[in-house]
């Protein structure tokens, strides 16, 4: 079934090998070396822009840290390594602040690269992959500008005398190349912002606050880079201040990322709350709310899997389809190898499979109970449906029988009786034959009358043909007591509703004749918000037996099969009131 396809596979993470611990150790060591190097730089030089160095470290350290955490938590995602690379690139770019020519040149080569890496991280978030061709083109262009044009620029002598890579000095060309480089990078970053905006418009605002914050910090970082490069290209005012602000902003992103992870950690405390809540054995609907709170996803939907029906149902036992809704994922919850339920949640929770697993495990028994409950309701619904179908089939069959009698036996008998009377006319000269024909004609008339009663008992054809108002006129006229009939409906109702209403009135009037010793009665059929209400009231002795002999049980079945209800008030000495409410839109 289609719904099962949407269930996210949960085994993927176990296939990808975790990162090599030696490698991780090395990254940590080198990462720690970066700030140490900066301290050394500060101690040994006097004319170094210390603020800039500190700001570069402010980027390097959180990026490496966040990258490490991301890599360990999600080995299958390339985001972690990418962030580590970004951290190191910005660390390397700080080398251009030294007075050693080789290091200076190396640092200069990586000067603009962090911007391209940052864009890569932004567009590759959250799974570390660039999804569309447009994204890949954008990131490739950024790398080409950040590395390729940087090398061209340096080889043309853009860095001045200390550069080791100057091939020939052509400062005018170098300036042009720098303009092209910075402006194109700026444009690419703005395109990246536009892309983020488009993605948000498509997927809607992320439902998790920390995620929204992260995306916003990404966008702000890209805008700052774009502004910085434009100002740099045209030697605009306050370049230094803008540069510092930009570095500051870029460093915020990995911190927000780490906070987001911490947020997820905090969610674990939600699991503890959940366990406490579950101990109180919440009602079926409260269970969903408790889960939604624990997962911090207000949009959470809880559906149960019913193997007997091969379908998912909601809390009420109504079948639901798990479609491929944008931005939603269904996570399956299994217990003892059997599929129990699915949580349909915001995509953002895909990032926290442990949380989902913990919540699923904590709610296990409650979910199993919930499933049983939903199954019970589903079976009840099923039963109701089949009762309605049985009744309808019976009704159709009765209608067919009546119709067959009408078109067959009844017509033939009428024709026969006509034939007999014509024959009788011709037998004017033979009184005895005439008498016998007349006798036969009377017999036929009797048969017709009996047949008519039988057919009417099978199904009141007038109801199908002409509706309740017409059909009830005769019933009321033949009633054993004076009846005031009020019909507050225009036109026809659905056939099943008409039939049920008809029987409620006719059975009630019959009961009045049999048991009530009433002097008068009223029968009313009205429509009130979505229901047809049929009410028959008499002023008799009351105390009617609602279970036996009165036909009330049959009436209740008929009404309930249509989703309605039948109520009877019959206090001793206080008359009887039968009220049926039948849903009817």
């Amino acid at each position, binding site marked *: 079934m289609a719904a099962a396809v949407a269930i996210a596979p949960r085994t993927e993470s176990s296939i990808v090998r975790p990162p090599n611990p030696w490698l991780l150790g090395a990254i940590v060591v080198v990462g720690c070396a970066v700030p140490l190097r900066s301290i050394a730089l500060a101690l040994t030089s006097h004319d170094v822009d210390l603020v800039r160095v500190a700001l570069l470290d402010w980027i390097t350290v959180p990026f490496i840290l966040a990258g490490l955490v991301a890599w360990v938590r999600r080995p299958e995602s390339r985001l972690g390594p990418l962030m580590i690379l970004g951290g190191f690139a910005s660390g390397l770019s700080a080398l251009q602040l030294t007075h050693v020519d080789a290091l200076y040149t190396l640092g200069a080569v990586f000067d603009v690269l962090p911007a391209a890496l940052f864009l890569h991280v932004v567009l590759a978030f959250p799974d570390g992959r660039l999804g569309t061709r447009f994204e890949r083109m954008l990131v490739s262009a950024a790398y080409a500008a950040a590395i390729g044009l940087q090398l061209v620029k340096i080889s043309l002598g853009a860095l001045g005398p200390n550069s080791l890579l100057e091939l020939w000095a052509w400062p005018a060309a170098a300036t042009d190349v720098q303009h092209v480089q910075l402006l194109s990078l700026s444009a690419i970053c703005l395109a990246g912002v536009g892309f983020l905006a488009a993605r948000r418009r498509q997927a809607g605002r992320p439902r998790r606050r920390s995620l929204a914050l992260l995306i916003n910090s990404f966008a702000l970082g890209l805008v700052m880079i774009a502004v910085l490069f434009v100002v740099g290209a045209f030697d605009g005012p306050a370049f230094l201040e803008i540069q510092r602000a930009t570095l500051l902003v870029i460093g915020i992103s990995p911190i927000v990322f780490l906070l987001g992870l911490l947020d997820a950690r905090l969610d674990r405390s939600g699991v503890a709350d959940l366990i406490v809540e579950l101990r109180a054995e919440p009602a079926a609907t409260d269970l969903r709310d408790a889960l939604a709170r624990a997962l911090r996803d207000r949009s959470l939907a809880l559906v149960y899997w019913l193997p007997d029906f091969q379908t998912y149902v909601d809390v009420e036992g109504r079948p639901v389809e798990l479609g491929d809704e944008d931005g939603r994922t269904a996570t399956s919850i299994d217990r003892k190898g059997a599929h129990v339920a699915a949580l349909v949640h915001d995509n953002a929770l895909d990032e926290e499979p442990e949380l989902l697993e913990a919540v699923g495990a904590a709610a296990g028994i409650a979910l199993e109970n919930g499933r049983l409950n939903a199954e019970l309701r589903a079976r009840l619904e099923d039963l109701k449906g089949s009762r309605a179908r049985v009744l309808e089939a019976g009704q159709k069959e009765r209608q067919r029988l009546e119709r067959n009698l009408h078109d067959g036996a009844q017509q033939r008998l009428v024709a026969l*009786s006509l034939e007999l009377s*014509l024959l009788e006319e011709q037998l004017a000269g033979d009184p005895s034959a005439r008498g016998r024909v007349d006798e036969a004609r009377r017999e036929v008339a009797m048969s017709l009358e009996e047949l008519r009663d039988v057919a*009417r008992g099978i199904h009141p054809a007038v109801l199908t043909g*002409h509706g309740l108002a017409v059909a009830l006129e005769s019933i009321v006229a033949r009633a054993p007591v004076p009846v005031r009939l009020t019909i507050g409906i225009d036109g026809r109702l659905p056939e099943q509703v008409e039939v049920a209403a008809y029987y409620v009135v006719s059975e009630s009037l019959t009961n009045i004749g049999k048991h009530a010793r009433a*002097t008068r009665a009223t029968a009313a059929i009205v429509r009130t918000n979505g229901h047809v209400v049929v009410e028959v009231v008499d002023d008799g002795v009351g105390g009617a037996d609602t279970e036996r002999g009165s036909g009330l049980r049959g009436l209740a079945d008929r009404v309930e099969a249509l989703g309605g209800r039948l109520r009877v008030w019959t206090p001793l000495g206080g008359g009887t009131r039968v009220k049926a409410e039948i849903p009817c839109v």
Partner: protein
Amino acid sequence: MRVAIAEDSVLLREGLARLLGEGGFEVVAQCEDADDLLLKVRSFPPDVAIVDIRLPPTHNDEGLRAALEIRKKHPAVGVLVLSQYVELGLALKLLADSAEGVGYLLKDRISDVGEFLGAVSRVANGGSALDPIIVSTLLSRQRPDDPLTRLTPREREVLELMAAGSSNQGIADRLVITLRAVEKYVSSIFGKLGLPSTGSESRRVLAVLTFLRS
């Protein structure tokens, strides 16, 4: 007198046509369904149309609708509705505005040839013919302090015939009494029921029905 028949059972349609033919009527149209009847009535109006209440295609209310339409658009054409069941509700619908030139009988009644032909010609001439079952249903209706109890048995008989659409002469023939006696009974009945005396016999039918229904 010209008659149009709408009846989907061939057996019955042919039988009716023969019966009417032998009774001195001219059967100008035999129709299977309501549309055909309406077309023929429009192009060549008969004096009376005999309509089966259940006609194709759905056998629900086509016949009744055709009857009501003829009464509305061709008031000069009498309409006699035949049915396997007679229903008070339908009678009231047919006679909603007037009882002139309208009849509603159980199909069985056609085997009582004399009565039936009488009813057909009565309707054709603008009179009425209501099935005795309708009248007895109305008469059996329970009423708080029923004024019908004040009628003598003979008066009750006259009332039944009157309600069914019989003329004074018809009642006199049926009960084998003089026309003068019938008139006396009628005015006595109207007095006891508190009904204003009305002129035509079909208006009298409506007045009695309205009284009996309330």
